[in-house]
Structures are given as C-alpha cells and as structure tokens.
C-alpha cells in the first residue's frame, strides 16, 4: 500500500486540514495511478464496455419499441432476428431486448446501491474500530463477528417478515450484510496506517479524532476499498439473482439478469435465446467489473504487481 501523504488527499487539490494548500503542478501519485490504469488495456476496455452497458441500461428501456411488461399474445416464443423482436420473445410474448435492458438496469442498480450501503457502513465502522483500537475495537469487531454468523437468507427472510416485501429493502439487506467484510479489511488497513508519521503529525497539530479518520485515514484506504468494491458489485448481482430465484427478490413483471437466466435455463431446449442473451450480458458485466478492479489494484498499489 502506497501511503499518500495528507497533501495528496484526493479531490481536494491537495491541502489537508490545518495545512496551507499549495497548488500542485507536478505528477501526483494519483496522476501516476491514472496513467497506469489507462495503460492497462483490459481495464480500459472494461471501462468503455461498462459505460456502454450503463448507458444502455439507463436510456435503453425508453427506446425499445416494446415495454418490458408488454404481453404480445401473437408472438409467443419468437426466435431472435425474426420480425419485430430483435432478440426474440419469452413464453408470454414479451420482448427479450426490452426485458434484458430493464433486467440489466435492476441488476446494476442493486449492485451499486447495495455496494454503496456496504461501503459507507463498512468504511466508517472499520476505520473507527481500527483507529480507536483497544476495547472499542474489541467490541466493534466482535459485533461484526456476531453478524457474520447470522445466515444471510435467514436475515433476509426476517427482514421480509418484519417490513414486508419491498424492493428497496432488498438492496439494503444485501448491503447490510456485505459491509462486514469491508469493515474487516478497512480495520486492518487502519491499524497499519495510524502508526504512520502523518497521522502523528495531524494528532500533534490537534486535529480531532473524527476528523483524522475522515480526512486522513479514509482517503488512504481508497486502494483496497476500490478493489473490494469492484468485487462486491458482481457478488451482489449474483446474490440478487439468488434471492429472486427464491421469490424474495424482484417479482414479475419486473426482472433482473439473474431472474432472466434462471427462467431461461428452464426453457433452454425450447427457446435457447432466453438463456444465451442474458448470460452473455451477465458475463460481460461481471468481467468488466473484474477487469476494472484488477486495473485499479495494479494502478493504485503498484507494489503488488
């Protein structure tokens, strides 16, 4: 882990609390990281493809000639590239392209929202525990251990029972489980970081603990956190498809990549396109995230190469 000094904290143009901010002209460590990232072809391809997918998921559903839940009673199980349906239709005559775009949108949204939830809770929790140390750390991490032992499905079902079936809730549920690993990673990093000289300096300058955590510790955790985030998003997308399969996730007529694939697998022999296209999109999306994650790790943390 390359330690970024407080002057190099991202997004601020340099300058941390209490220190005079001098405009930096030279190559910062972030510039290096960016250059390294853009030199990684796989990562760049990942970024481009993912950007295309995101745009398609955002505006695509408005452009398709059919709504995702529109039943076309005369076009049941139409194959791809035949007539009006580019990617074919399902057993209810619903246009696969429209459903795929909506499914992608739902999956990406689930992935991003749940990951942001896990990021916010995990970083705050882990950094606090790591920085404060001692008994506070003990208690906080034991809480994480206890939550870890709670079976995921059991937790989700419990939430459903208490709050009713709710799409938003599922995002939160997944995020609320995924933050545990994040908290552990962040705590471990923080334990190392807090012994560094710039933290000493901040402390000597009289900066308060919350501010040190927020301004000095958190930015330096970025490397491992970003990598972990890019790995969490695909994990969450998979978890969502699993929940939907069990009837706990998205419900008809809304769909997600996972639901499309599990339904498509059932009709595999009769309508292979219902499995093939969603699988391709799922694989491509997950690969993009993994490439980007790989690239970021290499860029931010060159020692690991």
């Amino acid at each position, binding site marked *: 882990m390359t330690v970024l000094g407080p002057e190099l904290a991202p997004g601020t143009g340099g300058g941390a609390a209490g220190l005079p901010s001098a405009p930096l002209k030279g190559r910062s460590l972030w510039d290096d990281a960016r250059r390294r990232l853009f030199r990684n072809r796989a990562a760049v391809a990942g970024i481009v493809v993912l950007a295309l997918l995101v745009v398609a998921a955002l505006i695509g559903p408005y452009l398709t000639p059919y709504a995702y839940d529109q039943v076309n009673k005369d076009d049941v199980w139409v194959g791809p590239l035949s007539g009006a349906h580019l990617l074919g239709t399902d057993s209810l005559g619903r246009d696969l392209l429209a459903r795929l775009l909506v499914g992608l949108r739902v999956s990406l949204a689930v992935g991003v929202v749940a990951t942001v939830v896990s990021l916010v809770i995990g970083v705050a929790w882990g950094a606090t525990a790591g920085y404060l140390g001692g008994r506070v750390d003990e208690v906080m991490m034991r809480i994480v251990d206890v939550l870890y032992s709670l079976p995921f499905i059991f937790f989700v079902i419990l939430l459903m029972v208490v709050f009713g079936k709710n799409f938003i809730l599922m995002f939160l549920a997944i995020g609320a489980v995924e933050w545990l690993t994040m908290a552990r990673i962040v705590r471990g990093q923080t334990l190392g970081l807090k012994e560094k000289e710039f933290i000493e300096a901040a402390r000597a300058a009289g900066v308060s603990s919350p501010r040190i955590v927020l301004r000095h510790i958190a930015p330096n955790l970025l490397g491992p956190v970003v990598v972990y985030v890019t790995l969490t998003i695909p994990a969450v997308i998979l978890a969502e498809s699993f929940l939907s399969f069990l009837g706990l996730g998205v419900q008809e007529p809304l769909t997600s990549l996972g639901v499309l694939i599990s339904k498509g697998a059932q009709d595999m*022999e009769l309508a292979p396109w219902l499995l093939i296209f969603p699988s391709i999109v799922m694989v491509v999306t997950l690969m993009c995230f993994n490439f980007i994650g790989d690239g970021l790790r290499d860029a931010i943390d060159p020692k690991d190469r």
Partner: protein
Amino acid sequence: MRPALPLILAAVGALLAGCGGSTRPACPAGELCLEFGNTGDLISLDPYKGGTTSELQAVGEFFTPLLDTAPDGEPVPGVATKWETSPDGLTWTFHLRDMVWSDGVPVTAEDFVFGLQRLFDPKTASDQASQIYAIKNSKAVNEGKLPLSAVGASAPDPHTLVITLEHPWPILPYYANSLVMTPTPKHAVEKYGDAWVQPQNYVGNGPYLPVSVKLGDKVVARKNPRYFDAAKICFDQVSFYPTIDAVSAERRVKRGELDVNTRIQSNRVEYLRRPGQMPDYVRVHPWVGVTYLAYNMRDVPALKDLRVRRALSMAIDREFLTKKLLRGGQQPAYGFVPPGMVDYKDGPRVDWADWPFEKRQAEARRLLAEAGYGPKNPLKIDIKHRNTADPSLVMPAVQADWKSIGVLATLTPNESQIAYEAYRTRDFQVADAGWVNGNNAMDYLYMQRSDVGTQNYGEYKNPKYDALLDEADQERDLAKRAEILKKAERIILDDAPVTATFFMVNQNLVSPRIVGWVDNSLDTHRIRFMCFKDAAARVAALPKQ
C-alpha cells in the same frame, strides 16, 4: 500448492462423474427402490390434515381407507370387502377383513368410528371434513354443536361398520376410498397424542410406512411387512421427493435419478414428446380439476363489489392461457365444474363466455369505472400464488391482462402448502388455487357454501346457494338433481366469488421401466400395483385388477 493439485483433480473428477452418471440414491442390495417425484413437501403425515395432491399421494400409501383405489382410479375393496345399503339408502353396512396395524394390533370397526369422530372433531380442524358432511350429524359435530359420539358411525362388532347418512348418497364409495375414510389407530393416538404421526411412532395400515421425514429433501417409506397383501408388494422402499421445480425434476427423471414425477411444466409437454426426448415417459390425461382465483370478500373492500369481481374475471384471456401459454391440453374454463362428471353434463357458462375478448375488456373497464376505479385511482391488488410450474407461468399473464384494464396487481409466490395455509387463514387478497376432488359436481360446488369452513377461501355467503345445494342433496333423481346443481352453479358464475381459469389435465412423467401405472381422470396411483418391468418375478406376483 503442490499437494492441493491431486485433491483438486479428484474433486473435479468427482464433480464430472456426478454430472455425467446417475446420482440415483443407493438401494439396499437385493431390494427394489422407487424414487418418486411428488411435486410438493408433506407438511403433515396425518391422513386428515393434509389436502394437497402430494400429501394425498404419499399418505395414501401409509393407510388403507375403507375402500382402496384400483389402478384406474375406481374404488375397490380395501379394509371393507363387501357392503350393503338399506332400502332407503340411509344406512350403509361395511364388512371388514382381518387386518392388523403396522404394530400388530388388529384394525377394527371401532378404529373407523374413532377416525370419523377425530375427523369431525373441531379440534382436529381438518379442512377435508366437509367433503363428507353427508354422514349423519357430522356437520353439527364439526361445528361443535353436538358431542363427538353423535357422528353417524357405529361398530356393532369389530368386523362391521355401520354408517348412517343425512340423505341418500349413492356416491359414498367414491369417498370411502379417500383419506377422510381411513381408520385411525386409536391405541397409538391415545399413547402419543399428536406426536403419533412422527416416523418413530407412526402406525398405519397401508402398504408402506414412513421411516424418515426430511422437509425439503425427501420422505422415505419402507414396505409394511404386516400389510395384509404384503407378499405382493413389489417395491421394498419408496422415496417421495418434493420436486417443486418441474423442469429440473424432468431432468432427474431423464437421468434415471427419479422414476416418476407427478408434474410436467405444461408448455414443455410438446417438446418432451419429440423423438429423442422422452416421448415414452409423458403421460397426459384429462383430470377432474379446476384452477381458479378466489377473491377475499371478507377483508378486501374492493372485492366485495360484484362489479370489480366480474371485471377481474372477464379480463382474463383463458384462450391465451390454455392454447398459447400452457399448451398442455388444458381447457379454458367458463364454468366452475370441470367436464367428466358422472352425474352432471353441460353445466352453465358465464354470460360473457362467447363475447370477443375486446368486448370483455371494454365491459370490464366500464364496470371498474362504475365501481370508482380508473386511471387516476387504479385498483391495486395482490395475487398470492403457488410457486409450482404452471401458476408461475399463468400468474404473470393474469397480471398483464389485469393491467390492460387498469388494475395494478402484484404477485406473491409461495410454496404450495404455505399458500394454502394462508388462504385458510384468509391472509390473501386474490388467491390462486386448484381443486381436484372427484367426479361429482357436488365435490366442486360445495366449496362455496357459506358453512363449509376454511375451504371457502373468499368467505362467499349466499343463503340461496346453500339452499339449492341442500335441495340437491335431498333429491334422489339424478337428472333432477343435476338441474338443481346447474341452478346453483349459475349463481356462483353470476356472483363471481371465484373465477375458474382452466380445467386441468394430469401430466406425469413415468419411466417406461414401470409397469402398472394407469392414467386416470382422478390421478390416483397406488404404488402397490406398480413394479419395474425387469423384475419379472415380482411383476408376476402383482395383485390382479
């Protein structure tokens, strides 16, 4: 990392072997084991408490009712070998064979009397009891108005059972072979209480007995050596699997992991019949069953409005459901009583049955608007449905049909037993249900009686309807009786407390290795009449029917 490699290779090898070969569970040497895909879990092994087709199938192997069921579904001698009726048709006398329970205690007429008393005991809360309210005083007992001893069943001696009726009921044998007329092992119930249905305490008089029950996995049953015809039983062991996912079950049958699965996802029948697939496995036969939606008229204000119920019923495109979506031979339903009744032909149809679909949609929109629902104030409703194959296909179509008349429906899939349990406690707005009972119109019409109990899911109450059914019960002329029943059916078609969507077909996947399976319109298949073709000696020993 080096030592890990052989391990990984071994694991991959095992995985591949698992995928390629059959993962049929091991069967004890020298024995024959039947692996039976049973569609759903068995929540209760008590013969009076379960009502799903999965429970009727499996628990039906653990008990022999008063009469047994032949491979073609017809009642044949069971515990009773012969019976006679009094001239007025009100008293039936059954003569019982020598038979013992699985613990060696003799099965007596007293066990039947005790069984019927337990069935009608309000504490048992059996939702199957109302099928045989024809038995004298049974309804009053079930409602707690009379003591248990008032039930019209007596045992003058251990081998004679006398059943007295409220009204003549010539179709009694069609109920005597169902689980409601099984004896109950009085000695076991007295000893263990409700725990008598635990596998370690289980006492039955059927050809098989459950030895292990794992919810979500399987129920294993072994041959009952004390069954009266035990020598002729072919399979030593039968395992019942809750194969909720019909498509993966189909693959398990193909691999030889299962011998039977009692469900095929309808829209795959056509495909499975293709050469090279499983044409010799597919068994499709008309089934006396109706699939319907019940509207909760007790708790949902919108559904108390006849106009709303009519609009919702009208807007479902039954031709699309049956011909294009399911494609499994189901018939669109415009009445409630399925075809194939022995006592009832050409029942009435809903008044809008022959309207073009567009006209129905327009009328539905008009009715909804009249009831105060429109684009600005859409009707929002939840459909609770079973998560088995066909409802999972049909419900999104119903949802889309309703959306096109401006009704916003959400879907809540549940496991079958959980769904039915919710319907019984009225925890639903619109319920997707199926009903397969017998080949009598009354078996279907009685469900909407106001006094039928939990099975009237929507709590429909219409004294005129009840009165017509009572009148039909008293009528001994079958033609006149049918006319009265038609009037009754007309009422529920007009009032729409429920709306039928399609009439069922039974779809079984049966390995060609099995002999003794006969398709029948009741879809009842007793395993003791079946065997593997290749076990010639045992096939020869099968009971002759």
